[in-house]
């Protein structure tokens, strides 16, 4: 099986990743994947999306988030893959996948991974257009999304 947590500059093939993940899992009937794709911005002139991260802390944070999700949602397996460096519009940025006996757990596990990853893993996006560069601002909705997991405790 490939490493369950990967942080890399190289592009990845989300379909191949999904297949490899599903093939490595036994006894779990439900597999959920989430893929994040670089969206163009409102002005339509995104040239590059640069992703900065904190080497070392990133891997540590992702491994911790994965371990939490595995236990909390009784997952058979979970994987997280996140790119950094310069990405082009329509490039896949990242992916998570979860496997569980029941679909509710696989879905909840994947959402949990995404919500934590969005606001708790040290990645920062910068949008570069012909007219300049701007750091992407965190969305308050992402903090709200996190809050529901603590409420459910």
């Amino acid at each position, binding site marked *: 099986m490939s490493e369950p947590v990967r942080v890399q500059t190289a592009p990845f093939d989300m379909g191949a990743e999904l297949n490899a993940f599903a093939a490595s899992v036994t006894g779990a009937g439900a597999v959920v994947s989430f893929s*994040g794709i670089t969206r163009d911005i409102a002005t339509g002139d995104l040239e590059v999306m640069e*992703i*900065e*991260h*904190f080497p*070392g*802390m990133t891997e*540590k*944070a992702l491994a911790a988030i994965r371990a939490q999700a595995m236990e909390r949602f009784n997952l058979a397996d979970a994987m997280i893959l*996140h790119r950094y460096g310069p990405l082009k519009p329509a490039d896949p*940025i*990242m992916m998570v996948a979860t496997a569980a006996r029941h679909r509710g757990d696989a879905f909840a596990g994947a959402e949990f991974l*995404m919500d934590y*990853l*969005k*606001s*708790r*893993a*040290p*990645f*920062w*996006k*910068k949008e570069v257009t012909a007219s300049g560069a701007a*750091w*992407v*601002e*965190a969305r308050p909705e992402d903090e709200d999304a996190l809050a529901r997991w603590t409420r459910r405790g």
Partner: protein
Amino acid sequence: MKLDIRYFAWLRERVGTASEQIETEAATVADLIAELRARDEGYAYAFSDTGSIRAAIDQDLVEMDAPLDGAREVAFFPPMTGG
């Protein structure tokens, strides 16, 4: 005590460096920010909105009142925008 300080994203750009080593007696992350802010206009600007600043001690996210006791590295950065 000696501390390695690291900056990421716009905090790095505003401070003008990715890392530095400092000598400080600050007791908490908040104390350290106050100390850095007092340095010069660049730092004051970088740290002007503490609501937009996150900190990690030795690669673990911490709150602003976290003690620096035993810390080797403190990292400052804006709210994360991964995913």
